[in-house]
């Protein structure tokens, strides 16, 4: 078996049983790995209507066939489970080193099932796998947990949850190497519900490569393309993802104060250029990554440096809260990492709370003389993040995410979310294709399921009219399908700024010994997208939830270069369903499913 290690580790926390199973090579190739294969393995075993926190729910940790190979950026892993935030399929992925080390330990995936009676962690050193009591770790922050586990198992990579995951916050992340996050969809809370604090992995095994000389050649070609590309060889290494702050803001789609506006006159204070000039200590790359967009930055409170922040984090703790203070952003990023919370959902929930305060739904009395949740109040950010992560006082309500918060007050329309997952840093009123992508994303509000920002704003691979609807359903489908492929290989999505479907097919072919074309891998991506959609439908998430918050459909953008625009989802959605080969209700047709090998 080439590319894969050929082994799945199954861990039952109820019975304390640890077993290994052979990987079905044909099944693996059909769904590639990572997001695709993880979803298939999960769906074959779990009732889509399961309570995400029930012992019957399972959680899959899975790398891809390119993980741990010489291919660029092959260190990622995917977490697949049912999201406690959305009720949809959750596939949340993270960089760093952990995904590659899972492979070096000899495994393609770990399936965790059941629930431990007391806190435990899982220790993996190739064939030596132990479920270890973790009462001493329960309650500890992410970095302390990681340090303690690395002392116990030197040379290992540590994945852990923080207090937010232990306390079942719907925005809890899974962290690895302290500052890398499988952040979205509340996957950390599913670990917490199983009393599973952490997983350490260690090993020195390597996958067998079908055509080593061919892989060497295609890897060299891809590395050259990445190096020569203006984004992956220039903008990202120099400025990180933070470089987006200014360009998104200048286009008037940089959300301010819970998406009440689209342009921030003070955004420069938290821009990539400012971060690089005043705060950057060094780059902080992931495994085998020639791009190196990760940052290691200092602040007054962290003079030795911390990992981050990324663009989404900068926006959500600055423009979205009306603050624009880099020190506040870096401090907020630090506490999200320590508590194990998704920065996007945490900041977006604070933004929603601030709008609810602005409109009189949240009052001073409810906050019990605590710090006021008001736009522009920098003192409120870390204060409420800590309460959110530890579920203290009003923070217990905040820990559930912006949708449940706004719904509690009877006004869910003030949650800027899709399928209850908080939206990222791009206002869809001025990016019509991206809005369609938000509405149809299988994991709820998300930018990395089909990054239409590339053609609509950044001019990559070509510049589209961001207000024009023509052809956007085609772009959305292609981007979604290709992203599903990349997420399944074990590589980073950012490689797609320089590489296309053919390069991904080439790398997979040399590793697996296959002979796939670009069209073949895109078909696999479409298969994965439809599989996820089927899970959501069976879980009770109907296509009626393929929508956007009313603000984007009814309220014209009040300011900036997007002034006067709303999102025209009602025109785009039927075109999208047709492009996907689904019926008018957004249900995949038998004909399409048969073509995709899903019947």
């Amino acid at each position, binding site marked *: 078996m080439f590319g894969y290690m050929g082994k799945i580790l199954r861990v039952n926390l109820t019975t304390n049983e640890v077993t290994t199973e052979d990987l079905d090579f044909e099944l693996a190739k059909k769904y590639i790995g990572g997001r695709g294969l993880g979803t298939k393995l999960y769906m074959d075993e779990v009732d889509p209507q399961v309570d995400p926190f029930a012992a019957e729910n399972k959680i899959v940790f899975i790398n891809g066939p390119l993980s741990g190979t010489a291919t660029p950026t092959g260190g990622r892993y995917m977490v697949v489970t049912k999201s406690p935030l959305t009720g949809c399929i959750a596939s949340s992925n993270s960089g760093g080193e952990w995904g590659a080390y899972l492979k070096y330990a000899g495994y393609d995936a770990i399936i965790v099932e059941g629930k431990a009676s007391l806190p435990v962690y899982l220790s993996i050193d190739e064939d030596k796998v132990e479920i270890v009591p973790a009462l001493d770790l329960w309650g500890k922050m992410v970095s302390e947990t990681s340090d303690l586990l690395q002392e116990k198992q030197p040379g290992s990579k540590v994945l852990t949850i923080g207090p937010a995951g232990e306390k079942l916050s719907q925005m809890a992340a899974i962290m690895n190497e302290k500052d890398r996050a499988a952040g979205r969809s509340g996957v950390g809370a599913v670990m917490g519900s199983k009393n599973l604090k952490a997983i350490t992995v260690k090993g020195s095994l390597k996958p067998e490569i079908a055509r080593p000389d061919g892989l060497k050649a295609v890897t060299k070609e891809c590395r050259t393309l990445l190096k020569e*590309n*203006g*984004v992956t060889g*220039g*903008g*990202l290494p*120099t*400025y*990180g*993802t*933070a*470089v*987006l702050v*200014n*360009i998104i803001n*200048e*286009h*008037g789609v940089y959300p301010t104060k819970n998406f009440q506006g689209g342009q921030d006159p003070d955004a*420069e204070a938290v821009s*990539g*250029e400012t971060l690089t000039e005043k705060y950057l200590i060094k780059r902080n790359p992931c495994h085998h990554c020639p791009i190196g*967009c990760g940052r290691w930055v200092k602040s007054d409170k962290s003079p030795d440096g911390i990992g981050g922040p*990324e*663009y*989404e984090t900068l926006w959500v703790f600055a423009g979205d809260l009306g603050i624009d203070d880099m020190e506040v952003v870096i401090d907020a990023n630090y506490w999200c990492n320590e508590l194990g919370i998704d920065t996007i959902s945490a900041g977006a929930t604070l933004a929603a709370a601030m709008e609810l305060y602005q409109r009189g739904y949240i009052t001073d009395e409810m906050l019990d003389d605590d710090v006021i949740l008001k736009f522009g109040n920098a003192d409120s950010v870390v204060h409420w993040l800590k309460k959110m992560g530890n579920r203290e006082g009003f923070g217990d309500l905040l820990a559930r995410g912006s949708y449940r918060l706004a719904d509690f007050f009877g006004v869910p329309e003030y949650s800027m979310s899709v399928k209850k997952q908080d939206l990222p840093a791009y206002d869809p009123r001025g990016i019509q294709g991206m809005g369609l992508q938000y509405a149809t994303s299988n994991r709820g509000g998300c*930018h*990395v399921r089909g*990054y239409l*920002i*590339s053609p609509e*704003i*950044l*001019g*990559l691979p*070509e*510049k589209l*009219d*961001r207000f024009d609807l023509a052809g956007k359903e085609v772009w959305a489908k292609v981007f979604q399908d290709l992203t599903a492929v990349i997420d399944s290989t074990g590589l980073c*999505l*950012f490689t797609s*700024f320089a590489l296309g479907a053919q390069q991904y097919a080439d790398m997979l072919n040399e590793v697996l010994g296959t002979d796939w074309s670009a069209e073949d891998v895109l078909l696999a991506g479409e298969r994965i997208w439809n599989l996820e959609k089927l899970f959501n439908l069976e879980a009770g998430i109907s296509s009626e939830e393929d929508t956007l918050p009313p603000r984007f459909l009814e309220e014209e953008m009040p300011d*900036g*270069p997007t002034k006067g625009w709303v999102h025209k989802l009602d025109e785009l959605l039927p075109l999208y369903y047709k492009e996907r080969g689904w019926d008018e209700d957004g249900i995949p047709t038998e004909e399409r499913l048969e073509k995709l090998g899903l019947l």
Partner: protein
Amino acid sequence: MAIKIKLFANFREGRGKIVEMDYTPGMTGQDVIDSLGITAPEIAALIVDGVDGKVDAMLAVPIKEDGYMAIFPPVAGG
């Protein structure tokens, strides 16, 4: 009257964040980048007086008398 040119990322190197230029009737983005020593292929995104579009097309658009341009090299993230 002067127009304002906003520069971003590595376009700021040796030029600064904002460059002000004297306005001359009919001047276009092409005139601006010529004077700044920037070539069209180096530009990934361009905004002229709040309007964005394909770079080549936007470089031909006349700038308003009190207008502005925002010029970006290839940048991305997510």
